[in-house]
């Protein structure tokens, strides 16, 4: 058997260029499958961890998914706001422990601006109920203070002391700047892997202050209120976009939810973040499955490639097999030789694929984080990934046996005189 292994190895080495292509195509499909699987699980994880510790999210009546999208993911815009009176009523509800109002709509160089109360920094939780941490500075206290997320700081190179101006509305190119009321960065949050990283946080009063002279989304012509004078105005917000709600007792969640949806002051709705996240995921999940299916197809194609490459090389091997038969190799040796080669090629291919995946994750993780806010971590393979690798190994090996069996039958028919 040792002799056979050395022959298998040297025979394969002799055809290394053809086989290298096969190894490469198996490696590529391994890489693709593992990559997609890893992104899929991380995406789900990232997604599910974007908000936690919040019992209800309250907003104007709309779709649950839409409310979740704009309040948590800063995607899209609210169709309606909720009045400050409602927020106060909510806070006064006996079952409610805390309320953190959120006011959205402005942006800073493409990043969403979130106006909220200082409580946000102590109440908001992400991941496994982790609180927000500051990696630099402190939460906002003065009117025109801002706290930026990790990605905002990294991408724009901001540190404590940086002066920034906000833009009205969202989008990178926005002419209506609140240039007259600049903010000072007083804190930078540690990275969370959630939309918080891509957010500029300011106080609710500050949001009110920069919009004092604005009406209906545009500055009133001829009215200018200098920054020093805004204190003279009542900066209590008139309305906010949404509110995060924590309850004294989680079991009251449905009662409070019902109370909110039947609130008479204005039409409101409350969603359970976990339920809404699942709902949203079930929509996104289709794309995720399509991705997985596609990489499975790629794996199939590369296996077909493997079969055809080996099949094509078979005629040239008929002679080799006949020689081996003539010097004493039995049919079982021939079969073992082909199976060994198939195993070598697939093991190498899958190993290279895993290596590519590891390198890919290591090299692309910072870019993915910066570009898509997707945190990829290098960690030992999950059960699913082990299964994927195992099935690739088995499928690849079985695929390489196909030409093997054909060669075996040829060798059986040819005997010692291949008819070529």
């Amino acid at each position, binding site marked *: 058997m040792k*002799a056979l292994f050395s*022959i298998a190895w*040297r*025979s394969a*080495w*002799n055809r290394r260029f053809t086989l290298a292509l096969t190894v490469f195509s198996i490696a590529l499909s391994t890489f693709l499958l593992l990559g997609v699987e890893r992104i899929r699980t991380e995406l789900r994880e990232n997604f599910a961890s974007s908000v936690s510790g919040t019992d209800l999210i309250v907003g104007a009546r709309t779709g649950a998914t839409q409310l979740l999208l704009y309040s948590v993911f800063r995607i899209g815009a609210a169709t309606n706001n909720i009045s400050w009176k409602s927020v106060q009523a909510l806070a006064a509800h006996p079952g409610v422990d805390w309320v953190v109002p959120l006011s959205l709509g402005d942006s800073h160089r493409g990043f969403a601006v979130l106006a909220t109360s200082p409580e946000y920094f102590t109440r908001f939780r992400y991941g496994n109920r982790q609180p927000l941490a500051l990696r630099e500075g402190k939460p906002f206290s003065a009117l025109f203070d801002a706290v930026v997320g990790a990605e905002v700081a990294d991408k724009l190179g901001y540190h404590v002391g940086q002066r920034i101006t906000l833009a009205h509305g969202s989008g990178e190119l926005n002419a209506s700047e609140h240039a007259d009321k600049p903010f000072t960065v007083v804190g930078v949050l540690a990275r969370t892997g959630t939309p918080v990283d891509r957010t500029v946080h300011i106080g609710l009063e500050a949001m009110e202050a920069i919009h004092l002279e604005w009406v209906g989304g545009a500055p009133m012509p001829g009215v200018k209120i200098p920054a020093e004078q805004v204190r003279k105005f009542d900066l209590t917000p008139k309305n906010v976009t949404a509110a995060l709600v924590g309850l004294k007792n989680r079991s009251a969640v449905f009662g409070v939810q019902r109370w909110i949806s039947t609130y008479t002051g204005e039409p409101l709705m409350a969603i359970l973040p976990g339920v809404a996240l699942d709902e949203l995921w079930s929509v996104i999940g289709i794309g995720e499955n399509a991705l997985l299916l596609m990489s499975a197809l790629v794996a199939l194609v590369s296996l077909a490639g493997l079969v055809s490459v080996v099949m094509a090389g078979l005629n040239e091997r008929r*002679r*080799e097999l*006949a*020689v*081996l*038969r*003539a*010097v*004493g*190799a*039995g*049919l*079982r*040796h021939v079969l073992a030789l082909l199976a060994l080669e198939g195993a070598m090629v697939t093991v190498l291919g899958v190993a290279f694929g895993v290596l590519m995946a590891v390198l890919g994750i290591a090299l692309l993780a910072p870019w993915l984080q910066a570009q898509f806010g997707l945190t990829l971590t290098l960690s030992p393979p999950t059960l699913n990934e082990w299964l994927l690798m195992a099935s690739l190994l088995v499928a690849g090996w079985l695929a390489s046996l196909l030409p093997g069996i054909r060669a075996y039958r040829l060798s059986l028919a040819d*005997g*010692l*005189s291949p008819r070529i």
Partner: protein
Amino acid sequence: MSTVPQGEAAPTLRVVLAAEGLRFSWPGMARPCIDIEALRITAGEAVFLHGPSGCGKSTLLSLLAGVLVADEGRVMLLGHDWSQLSGAARDRCRVAHVGYIFQQFNLLPYLSVLDNVLLPCRFSQRRESQAARGGSAREEAEHLLEQMGLDHNLWKRQAMQLSVGQQQRVAAARALIGQPEVVIADEPTSALDEDRREAFLDVLLTACAVNNSALVFVSHDQRIAQRFARHVLLPEINRAAPAAMAADA
């Protein structure tokens, strides 16, 4: 087995290969391809088996080597009936007692010349131990290569770097290593030009005689026939061969 002391050139009359009442037809063919009453080859004998294309030479060789099994009758190698052995046992028996030389492409191109010669020793304990009698199998391989007139500097080369004539001589060395009782050569000179053909025959016949290996040499080339002590015209003994062939040949 034989009681005659080995090493001496005294040829014994021991039959090493025998066919009796042999009939064989390829699957799906109505007529048999081989129908031979009797064929006996004794130890150390050099047999020139000839006949035109299509008279069943390759089929007969496959039957003699136990690659194909007779439909009727039997082929015996050293008293073992091929048809009584399992496939794996036939493979073992073949490598232990038979050396085989093809028309061309005899060698595994990716192995060195020396490794190619040693191949039968890797698959057969008997060939290995016989080859190692005078020292090691490797020395025996080198000795045979020398006998075949292949230079030292070629031994470590990859087989594919050799010329066709050199490759055939390596194949002969391989067929002879470990002193198999029978060497079967299937038109081994057809790819060689005349000078090389004569040189190849010289070394092959000498080596077979020294090893006391019977040589079954198949060819349709009448020019080399006189080098052999015994001639067998296949269409004459093969009753299944088209009658016209026997007359032509």
